[in-house]
């Protein structure tokens, strides 16, 4: 399993990671985001989406609406499992349409719906290390993402 840890000192370092991911993720790529409340999952999604050409103002937490679709240079799908009680509720949202689509799919609170995620995906665990600083553990699940992780690590 290929993985690396990235320590971001502040929000701009988070944005750097986001921009890199927006560039390296393949079409139909899925990112599973895990981390506690306030860890910065939505912030990383904003960074990825902005780098993919989405108006930053459009990217807000989807906890209430569950799914947001943004049109950038390629589509960005923003899913949130925070309010869901079980995996059935997640499946009712039709996530496979997004996973199989040609955009990037970003799932917040992915650990709550782990069994519903694509077999191959990028997993990012976010940990709070200080008021501004964050630690990102980026892991490739499946061979398809090993190259993403490798390229990402090399350029950070």
């Amino acid at each position: 399993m290929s993985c690396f840890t990235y320590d971001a000192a502040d929000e701009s370092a988070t944005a750097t990671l986001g921009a890199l991911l927006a560039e390296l993720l393949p079409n139909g790529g899925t990112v599973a985001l895990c981390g506690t409340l306030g860890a910065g999952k939505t912030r990383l999604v904003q960074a990825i989406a902005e780098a993919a050409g989405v108006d930053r103002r459009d990217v807000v937490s989807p906890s209430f609406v569950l799914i947001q679709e943004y049109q950038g240079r390629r589509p960005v799908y923003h899913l949130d499992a925070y309010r869901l009680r079980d995996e059935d509720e997640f499946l009712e949202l039709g996530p496979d349409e997004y996973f199989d689509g040609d955009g990037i799919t970003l799932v917040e609170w992915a650990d709550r719906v782990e069994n519903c995620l694509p077999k191959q995906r990028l997993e990012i665990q976010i940990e709070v290390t200080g008021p501004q600083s964050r630690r990102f553990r980026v892991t490739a699940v499946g061979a398809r993402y090993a190259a993403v992780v490798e390229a990402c690590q090399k350029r950070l």
Partner: protein
Amino acid sequence: MLRVCQRAADVKLLTLETTCDETAAAVVTDRLEVLGSVVASQDDLHKRFGGVVPEIASRAHLERILPVIDQALRQAGVSLAELDAVAVANTPGLAGSLLVGLVAAKALCVALDVPLVAVNHLQAHIYACRLASDEDVFPCVGLIVSGGHTSLYRCGGPLQFDLLGATTDDAAGEAFDKVASMLSLPYPGGPSIQRAAEHGDPTAYRLPRALLRDEDRLDFSFSGLKTAVRYQLVGPGRQDFAKVQLADSQVADLAASFQEAVVDCLVGKAFAALRQTGLSILCVGGGVAANTRLRQRLKEEADRRDIRLHVAPLRLCTDNAVMGAIAVERLRAGLVEDLDLDVFPGVVRKTG
């Protein structure tokens, strides 16, 4: 076309609301009388259909929409044949949920041969203020603050909305829910934070008021506030809030400090919007408008600055179909829809 009625003031509309979790229907007249109103999270429906009504899934809306319509018509003592139009909220919201309401409305329009009217859910939240007031409330600044939205609009009229600012991350109600969860307070977070805050000191913790000093910008940000509360609780590294042992007084102080920070931002930006637009009426709607501290601070500030304040009554704060009476305005303006009307999940920045 509207059917010719015996009296001009006798037009009856069925309004549907399925933008998020609540399935709701109401029967209203063009004199803005409410003849019947049902929200599927109400107890009477729980009793009637047994058990707890499920949330979120569009399938749940599908199961509830017909009984809810039926109940609203019964309450109103109005038969389907007596309806003059059907209105439905088709933006913004969760696509699958919006679709259920829209398809139901279309089917009724075809069957009854009456016009279809589209309702903007956010405009409807502000129109709740008009419904509760005997006088016109436009033009005004509209503040919509709920679990899914935190936005400021310049409202030239009931159908003319210009987005002035909105949250850049979490909605205020969402922040209430998430901070309540951190403090091990029950869902929904709004009422439980308010209750916990009653015995707390709002100055006990110094929490950020993002963007508040930037007078030109009318946006909100509550994500940093949420993170700041998190940091007060567990500091760096640790992820598990459940293991944090808090004294009741700490919970009360954090709840009060958090609530005060949210209220400061909402009140500050609403009055900045009034100054920027030169308008003198403020209308506030949405679930968080039920917060007592927010209502109190809005009133103090409005009195001080000679602003006419309309806050939606508690029963019209959370999602309901009565506020869909804004459809009367569209009907009057001749704004009816074709049957190929679609849903628009995202927020529309400008209308009218």
